[in-house]
């Protein structure tokens, strides 16, 4: 072993060092990529209020202009469980595993599945 190390040049050692660095970077890069596709982002009035992993079951209450809205995360799905807005369209959305639930009166947006959610089949925006 010692002879192996003695036989390496500076360039060899530098190469080893760079290789180790590159593989460590890979861990961080892939972690970021995975988290984008499985996070639940809750925004109130356009500002991010909470980000939770989709994998952990929990219930959270957020307050908007109309009052509290209860968001439930369970079995890799999300729904609005209780709402204090007048028309309660958000409750009718039911459970989602990807996409967006919006409560306009209470100004709450729940996004599942990272930044590309809500853009079906590779379009940048949808009219209509």
């Amino acid at each position, binding site marked *: 072993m010692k002879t192996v190390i003695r036989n390496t040049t*500076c360039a060899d050692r530098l190469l080893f060092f760079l290789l180790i660095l590159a593989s460590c970077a890979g861990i961080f890069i892939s972690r970021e990529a995975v988290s984008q596709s499985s996070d639940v982002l809750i925004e109130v*009035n356009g500002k991010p209020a909470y980000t939770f992993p989709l994998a952990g079951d929990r219930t959270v209450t957020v307050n908007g202009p109309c009052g509290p809205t209860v968001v439930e995360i369970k079995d890799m799905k999300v729904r609005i469980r209780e709402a204090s807005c007048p028309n309660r369209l958000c409750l009718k959305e039911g459970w989602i595993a990807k996409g967006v639930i919006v409560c306009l009166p209470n100004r709450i947006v729940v996004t599942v599945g990272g930044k590309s959610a809500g853009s079906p089949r590779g379009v940048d925006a949808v009219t209509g």
Partner: protein
Amino acid sequence: MKKNLLVLLIFAALLNLAACAGRKPAVYKKTKPLMDTLVTITVVTNSEGEAEKAIDDALSTIDRFSGLINFFSDRSELAQINGDAGIRPVRVSPDTLGVIERAVFIAEKSGGAFDPTIGPETRMWDFPKKIRPPDASIREKLGLVNYRDILVDREKSTVFLRRKGMMLDLGGIAKGYAADMALENLKRNGITAGLVAAAGDIRAFGLKPDGTPWNIGIKNPRQNSKADELIARARLTGKAISTSGDYERYFIEHGRRYHHLLDPKTGYPAGGCRSVTVISDSGLYADGFSTAVFVSGPEKGMRLVTDAGVDALIIDKDGGIHTTPGLKGLVTFEDGH
């Protein structure tokens, strides 16, 4: 020799680091509930800070404008104009004056198919609650709908509705205008490419980081599934696109569809089309003309867009598709359409 190799390697490593530091342009996106809908702004830039600042600035511009022309708020300038109808002219800000002047222009161009004085009629309908006003009330309020009774005094910056009970409703034009304002704001902040989408009223400028135009889906007015089915896609840069459809706010009663696009001449929902998409250089015209063409119906609507120099994709009441020649190359239809 070994030393030279080492120097070369260190140099290569440094070069690599430098390349990583000069970040490539990326897409940044933010959505906010504004104007009773969702507004999404997308920008292409190489600095997250610059993106954040430009998007927030553009969103607050829309928020301010929305406060001026909100039909449902008592404190808006629009509410003051409506409240003082038949009484006195109301002094308003340049933005409110600007959008009303342009609304009158589209009303004139479309022979009243788009009419911003539709307010007394729209106010009586409640689509989520499936409330249809009595026929007698619809007829009675029709007398208050006439864009020729809007008096705009540009020098004094005032707007006056000639008869009491008249009401301006800028819903058919405001989101397109807001998209225009937001885009100008982004440009002032140094952004050279992006998308402003006030729900379905979208303005695209510049190119995506991969050098291609923006890809905008056009919704199928009759969805077979829940997943935002598209009928076509448009590839746009430097253009605005808007859609008016009978499926946005509607209810069905005794087999008949009642939707929010009211014909100013009858007070009832216009029946000629399922959806109309207009592509224009300005968000305001795309928004205004999509409503005007929808109300006019496919034949008159086609003449209207040709005269106005904008492009349109009309899906008539039977599902027939009508397009202007200018759409060739811009719009591709999904399989089966």
